[in-house]
C-alpha cells in the first residue's frame, strides 16, 4: 500500500527531502544553504569581521597609534571631574573614539581589545557548555536500556533539573568571589558560565537523542553489532549537529551578554584588561556628560549579539530542509509571482497542507528555551 504521498502531505514526491528529515550532504550543503540566505551571508561576514578584529586588535590599535592601557593625563580636564577635553569625549585623529574619562585611555584600543575578551569568553564558555551538555545529554539519552540505565538516566536528568533550577547569575557572582584572584579571570568566567549553563543543552541533546534513538537506522546499527559509543558517535552525533549548532548560535550571544553583565557589575575581567561590560559600567556614570561613552560599547555589544542571533536564525533555516532557501532565480520568480498575485488574493508562499515555517518539530526545546533562558539576565 502506498502511504508515502498521502502521509507526508507533500504535493508530489519530487519535493526532495521528506518531512522530518534534515538535509543530507554534510556540512558543505548546509554551508551552501547558509550562504544562499542573505541574512546568513551577512551574519557570516559580520562574525568573520568580529573574529578578525579580535585577532588583530594589537595591530588595529597600532594602526591608530595607541594602546589600550596608557593613561593620557594631558587630555583630561582635571578641574572638571577628569572629563576629556574636546567634544564627544575627545574624538579626533589621534583617538578615533575619544578617550576614557578620568584616565585618558584610548577608547578605540579598549574597544578592539575588549572584543578579545567578549569573544574569547563567549566562545570558551559555549564550547564548555556544549561539551558538558553533549556528554550529559548523550549519556542520559542513550542510558536507559535496562534497569541500571534507567537509573543513570533518572540521575542525570535530576542533576540537569537541579542545574536548571540554579540561580545561575547569583551563583556566578558567588563563585567569582570564591576563586582566588590569581586564577586567570577570562578562563574562570568561561568555566563558570559553562559549568552553570550546560543544562539546557543537555536537555535538548537528551530529547533529541531519544528521538534519534528510535530512528530505524539506529536500530539497524545496533543490529550490526556496533558498540554504544560507536552508535553515539556515528549515528546519533551527526543528527545532533543541526539542533546543537542552532542552539549554539543562541547560546553564544547569551554568554557574551553574561560576560558583559558580570563585567558590568565589576565581577568580570580585572583591570586593566578592557571589556565591553566594563566600558559600559564606566559609562553609566558618565553618560550624562557625553552619550558617546554609552553608545559606543552598547552598540558594539548589540551589533555582535545581533550578528550571532542572526546567524542562529539563518542556521535554523539552513538546517531546516522544509524552509525554503531562496536561490537567486527563485527569489526573482517569487517576486514576479507576488507582483502578479498582488491584484488578486494575498498569497503566502506555501501550498496548503505542507508543513513549513513551523519550528522544527524534532526539538521544540529550541524554540521555547530561548525566552526562558534569558530570565536570569534580566
Amino acid at each position, binding site marked *: 500500500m502506498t502511504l508515502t504521498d498521502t502521509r507526508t502531505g507533500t504535493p508530489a514526491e519530487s519535493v526532495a527531502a521528506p518531512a522530518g528529515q534534515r538535509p543530507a550532504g554534510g556540512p558543505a550543503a548546509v554551508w551552501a544553504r547558509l550562504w544562499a540566505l542573505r541574512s546568513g551571508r551577512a551574519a557570516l561576514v559580520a562574525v568573520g569581521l568580529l573574529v578578525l578584529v579580535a585577532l588583530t586588535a594589537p595591530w588595529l590599535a597600532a594602526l591608530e597609534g595607541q594602546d589600550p592601557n596608557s593613561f593620557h593625563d594631558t587630555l583630561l580636564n582635571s578641574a572638571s571631574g577628569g572629563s576629556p577635553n574636546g567634544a564627544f569625549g575627545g574624538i579626533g585623529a589621534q583617538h578615533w573614539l575619544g578617550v576614557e574619562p578620568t584616565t585618558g585611555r584610548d577608547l578605540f584600543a579598549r574597544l578592539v581589545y575588549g572584543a578579545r575578551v567578549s569573544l574569547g569568553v563567549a566562545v570558551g564558555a559555549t564550547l564548555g557548555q556544549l561539551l558538558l551538555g553533549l556528554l550529559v545529554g548523550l549519556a542520559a539519552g542513550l542510558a536507559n536500556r535496562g534497569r541500571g540505565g534507567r537509573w543513570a538516566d533518572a540521575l542525570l536528568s535530576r542533576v540537569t533539573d537541579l542545574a536548571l533550577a540554579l540561580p545561575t547569575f547569583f551563583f556566578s557572582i558567588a563563585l567569582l568571589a570564591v576563586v582566588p584572584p590569581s586564577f586567570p579571570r577570562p578562563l574562570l568566567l568561561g568555566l563558570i558560565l559553562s559549568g552553570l549553563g550546560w543544562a539546557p543543552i543537555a536537555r535538548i541533546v537528551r530529547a533529541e537523542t531519544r528521538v534519534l534513538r528510535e530512528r530505524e537506522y539506529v536500530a*539497524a*546499527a545496533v543490529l550490526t553489532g556496533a558498540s554504544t559509543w560507536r552508535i553515539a558517535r556515528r549515528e546519533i552525533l551527526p543528527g545532533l549537529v543541526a539542533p546543537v549548532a542552532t542552539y549554539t548560535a543562541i547560546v553564544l550571544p547569551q554568554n557574551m551578554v553574561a560576560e558583559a553583565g558580570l563585567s558590568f557589575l565589576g565581577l568580570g575581567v580585572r583591570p586593566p584588561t578592557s571589556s565591553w561590560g566594563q566600558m559600559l559600567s564606566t559609562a553609566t556614570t558618565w553618560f550624562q556628560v557625553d552619550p558617546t561613552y554609552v553608545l559606543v560599547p552598547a552598540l558594539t555589544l548589540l551589533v555582535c549579539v545581533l550578528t550571532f542571533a542572526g546567524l542562529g536564525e539563518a542556521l535554523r533555516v539552513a538546517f531546516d530542509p522544509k524552509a525554503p532557501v531562496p536561490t537567486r532565480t527563485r527569489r526573482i520568480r517569487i517576486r514576479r509571482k507576488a507582483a502578479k498575485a498582488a491584484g488578486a488574493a494575498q498569497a503566502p508562499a506555501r501550498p496548503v497542507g505542507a508543513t513549513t515555517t513551523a519550528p522544527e518539530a524534532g526539538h521544540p526545546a529550541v524554540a521555547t528555551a530561548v525566552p526562558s533562558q534569558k530570565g536570569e539576565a534580566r
Partner: protein
Amino acid sequence: MTDPVLQVSPDLPVSPAVQVSPVLQVRDLRVVHPGPVTALDGLSFDLAPGQVLGLVGESGSGKSAAALALLGLHRRTATTVTGEILLHRPDRPVLDVNAASDAELRTARGPELAMVFQEPLTSLDPYRRIGTQIATAYRLHTGASRPEARQRTAEVLERVGIDPKRARDYPHQFSGGMRQRVLIAMALALRPRVLVADEPTTALDVTVQAQILRLLDELRAETGMALVLVSHDVGVVGGLADEVVVLRQGRPVERGATGRLLGAPEHPYTRQLLEAVPRLDAPLPERKAPAADDVLVSVEGLRVDFGSVRALRGVDLTVRRGETLGIVGESGSGKSTLGRTLVRLQDPTAGAVRFEGADLAAWRGRELRRRRHELQMVFQDPTSSLNPRRLIGDSVAEPLRVQGGHDEAALRAEAVGLLERVGLSAEHADRYPHQLSGGQRQRAAIARALILRPKLIVCDEPVSALDVTTQAQVVALLRELREEFELTLVFIAHDLAVVRSVSDRVAVMRGGEVVETLAAAELTRPRHEYTRALLDAVPRLEAVVSPG
C-alpha cells in the same frame, strides 16, 4: 485523457438522477505547484447526484491535489489552479469554484461541497469538543440557534454511530475510525451535495476501513449526495465507485465505469497497476516446504510489557530454517514488537526466544555484539532506516566495517556487488538516501541486511510504505533473494494478500497473541473467526471485476 468529455459513460448502470443533470462538472482541471511542478494536468469528469467517482493513483499522481482543488483549497497558496469546476445548484446560479469570490466559495463550502480528509488524527481541532465543532460548522451556514445546532449534532452523531453523549469529548479521546466518523458527521450535518473523501481510510485498519466505506455508501444512498472518492487502493475504490479515473503523474490515463475499467483495462498502466495489486486468489508459487523439525527460532511464552501496557501476552511460535513465516495483524496487535524481540532489539519481560536452541537473552556484552550479525532486520520506513547523512554505499558497507577485518576497497566491492544484486547500480552507492525513491531505498536497506549473511532476517512491514507497483517489485526481489541466499525470513505486514504471496506459513496476531498459524495456502480458509473477519474486510478487487 484527450478524448472529448462524455456526459456519462455508456456502460454505466443507468440511474434516473444521472440522466437529469450532473451536480458537478469538472473541465480540464490543472494544478501547478510552485517549482513549477504540474501536479494535475487536464482532469475532466461529470458527477451526478448519488453517484460515486473514484480517483485512483500512486504517489505523485495528483489525486490529492485534485481533491483539494475541488473545494478551492489551493487558494491563498502559491499553487495555481486552472480549468472549470462547476457546481450545479437548484434555484441558484452555477458556481465555478475556481472563479468564485472568497465569500461565494465560503458559503458553498460545507452545505454544497464538503470534504473528509485522510488524517482523522489531525483533521479535527484538538482544542475544541467535537460537538462544538460540528455545531459551529452547522450554525455558520444555517444560522441555527445553539439548541437547534445541538439537536442536529446529536442527530448526525447518532447516524454515524457515535453516542451523542460523547459530543462533549475532545478529538484525542476518540480512535482514528471514530474521528473519521466525526468528520463524516460534520459533513452530514450540512447535507452537502458533493462530498470529497480524500483517502478516508488509508490511516485505518482494514476492519475499520470496511465500516467507514459502508457508512459512506449508506449516506450516499440516503441523502443522494455525490461522492468523489480518492484513494491509492484500487480495491477501496472498486468497491464503492460507479466510475473510476486512473491518474498517473498528474494525467488521467483512463476513465470508465468501474466494472469495465477494472475488468478490461485498456491503458497499459491501468493493467500494470491492477496486476501489481496483491490478490488473495492469486496462485501461489510452487515451493518446497522446509523441514518441520529444523527449527531455527522458537518463541516460548513470550511476553513483553511497556510499563503497564502489555504488547505481547504469551506468544509461542517456531521459525523453521529456510522458511518464510508471515506475521499479519492490525495495528496494536504486537507484530512489530514480536519482530523486534526476535532480533533482540527488545528484551522479553517473560518467556524466551531461542535461536538455534540457545536463549537469545543469554547473549551479553561483547558476545552479543559479535553475534548480532546473525539476526538482521529490514524496516518499514525507508526514509528513516538509512542514515540521511551517509552515502548509500557507506550505509550498506557499515555492518562489515563494524565487524572489522575488511579494507576499504573490499568493503566497497562487497557493497556495490550487493547493491547491484538488489537491482541498484554502483552509481547509487554514491548517493544520499533522499536522492533515491522509496523503492530504491528499501532495496538498499535489504542489501545492508544481507551483507553480513545473516541466518534470519525480520522484515517489518517492508513494503507497506511503497506504491503498489513498487511493492510488487520488492516482494518479487525478496522471493528471489530468499532462494539465492537460503534465507530464513520473518515477514511482517498488515496486508493479508502481501503476506500470503511471500510466506510459507502465516501467523495471525491480535491483541498481543497469535490467534492461529496456517500454511499460506490455507489462509483463505481460516479456522479462527478473527482471521475470517480480517479476510472479509479486505476490499475484493475480484468481486468487482468479475461480478457473479
